[in-house]
């Protein structure tokens, strides 16, 4: 397996706009995706995230430019779709599916031994070696997504594009998917750009976040970008990913912790103080400040961005592009 870290392209979207049927879907999108990084597009439904990816892979015509660094050559790109259009009766084996893009010999003349061993290697990479002889239609949601990831990794991509690759997968399956993806990116050194709605996992694994709602609302390291005020603008509901960024004036419902107008009951300041103290103790016990996963270093972007909301607003890459 080669490591493409040297040649991993960085992307630059320069005033990308797209209208369809009079509707402005993308409006002067200016964004970047660092080479070798894990960039995640975050935003509500209909914000144009998938559309932006389709522009990137040349599936849709757009105004503006998308430049890819790293010479004239187009980067070797792989794509992980949300799902496949097939019904359960299709007797396609996982090994055959992985060979589709790899061997010229038609499937009706059988799999080459090399294609077989390649399929086995790829499946090991996504922790799915037991599925080699399974039918594609018999896979669970999580297994299918991992096989799709394997098919994309088979191309040894320099640029990997993923469109909500783990949507509809259970918590454990989605976590495993992100973990495998992160491992593969570190091993192969590709640039990754994906759409996701799972904010906690984005905060944990992404190195660069683009908040998109037809236009770019904020961009930068997750810690500096996924702050409650940006998420409020983006989704219209209060979301707090980082406890220290919670507004102490709005402590939320003392029973369930929910924040918002409906929950503005009498705050229990003593409880908040206790919670805060406990959190600080956990933070002090771990070196990198990530209490969720001790023993695993936080992603580069998250670690380097120990910034609060005020510094995010003034930092060059965390500021608003609107």
């Amino acid at each position: 397996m080669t490591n493409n870290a040297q040649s991993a392209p960085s992307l630059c979207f320069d005033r990308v706009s797209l209208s369809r049927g009079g509707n402005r879907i993308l409006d002067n999108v200016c964004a970047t995706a660092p080479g070798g990084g894990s960039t995640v597009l975050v935003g509500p439904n209909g914000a144009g995230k998938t559309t932006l990816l389709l522009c990137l892979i040349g599936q849709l015509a757009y105004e503006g430019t998308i430049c890819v660094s790293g010479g004239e050559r187009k980067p070797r790109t792989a794509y992980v779709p949300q799902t496949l259009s097939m019904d359960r009766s299709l007797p396609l084996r996982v090994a055959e599916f992985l060979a589709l893009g790899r061997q010229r010999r038609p499937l009706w003349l059988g799999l080459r031994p090399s294609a077989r061993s390649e399929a086995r290697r790829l499946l090991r990479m996504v922790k799915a070696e037991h599925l080699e002889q399974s039918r594609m239609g018999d896979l669970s949601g999580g297994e299918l997504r991992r096989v799709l990831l394997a098919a994309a990794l088979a191309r040894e991509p320099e640029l990997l594009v993923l469109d909500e690759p783990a949507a509809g997968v259970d918590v454990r399956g989605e976590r495993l998917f992100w973990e495998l993806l992160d491992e593969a990116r570190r091993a192969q050194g590709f640039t990754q750009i994906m759409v996701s709605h799972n904010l906690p996992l984005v905060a944990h694994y992404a190195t660069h976040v683009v908040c998109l709602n037809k236009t770019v609302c904020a961009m930068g390291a997750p810690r500096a970008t996924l702050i409650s005020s940006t998420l409020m603008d983006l989704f219209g509901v209060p979301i707090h990913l980082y406890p220290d960024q919670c507004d102490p004036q709005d402590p939320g419902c003392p029973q369930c912790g929910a924040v918002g107008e409906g929950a503005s009951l009498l705050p229990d300041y003593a409880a908040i103080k206790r919670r805060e103290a406990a959190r600080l103790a956990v933070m002090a016990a771990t070196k990198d400040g990530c209490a969720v996963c001790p023993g695993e270093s936080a992603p580069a972007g998250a670690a380097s961005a120990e910034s609060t909301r005020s510094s995010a607003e003034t930092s060059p890459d965390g500021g608003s592009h609107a």
Partner: protein
Amino acid sequence: MPDFSPIYSLISLIPLDCLQMRFMQQALLGLLLLAPMASVLGVEVINFRMAFFSDAIGHSAFAGVALGLILAVPPRLAMPLFGVLVGFGIMAVRRNSDLSSDTVIGIVFSAVVAFGLAVVSRAEGVARDIQQFLYGDILTITPGEIGFLLLLFVALLVFQATGYNRLMYIALNPVMARVHGVRVALWQYAFAGLLALVVMFSVWAVGVLLVTAMLIVPAATARNLARSAGGMFWWALLVGTSSAFIGLTLSAQAWLATASGATIILVACCWFALSLVAARNSGRRRA
């Protein structure tokens, strides 16, 4: 004109009375070329969910004949040409429009059938053409047409050898296939063109009412019986070809004396019923 007499003498070795006549030998040869093509393309038709597409092309045969009448082109030339045009047309609209593909096909379908009926209602003496269009008439196939089928057979063999994997990829997810280096548009148009040609010849063999069956039934049977995507190809081939052979010889028996096209499809449907039982059993084993 190629000489098929060695093949005919080979066919006459089969100890069946009905196969001693030249027109039956020609019909069998024609079917043995056509049935494998149709059944293998059927695998892809099912993958692409394009059964309705092939039906629409089949019905455009009628409009093709009508157009041939107007332009004084022999119907057997006008039919396939028009079918290919309609196939490309549907594919182009399907690729470039937001309408769902069955809506697009439904519109084209209605247009071509209405056009055919309108022309035929004005002209006289086309009753026989309509009869042939509806029920098929493989027994009147000419050596020239067999020669053309042979060419088509070779083209389709090359197409399946180079395109089977790619078409499967496109059917699963066209965007992924394109990003991963498959020339999606080229393969889709090539598929539509070849499918249109095969459908036109199938109209001739089994009639427009049964043309979709000739594509779909062997492939659906193969889905039930095959254990892999490669096996699906061979099962479709086996079911399609054996149905054609058994159906043709059965229909020529004095005690049955049925239309050959319909008999072929009935045999294929028997295959399908058997495959359902087999699939249920293997499903029980897997569960």
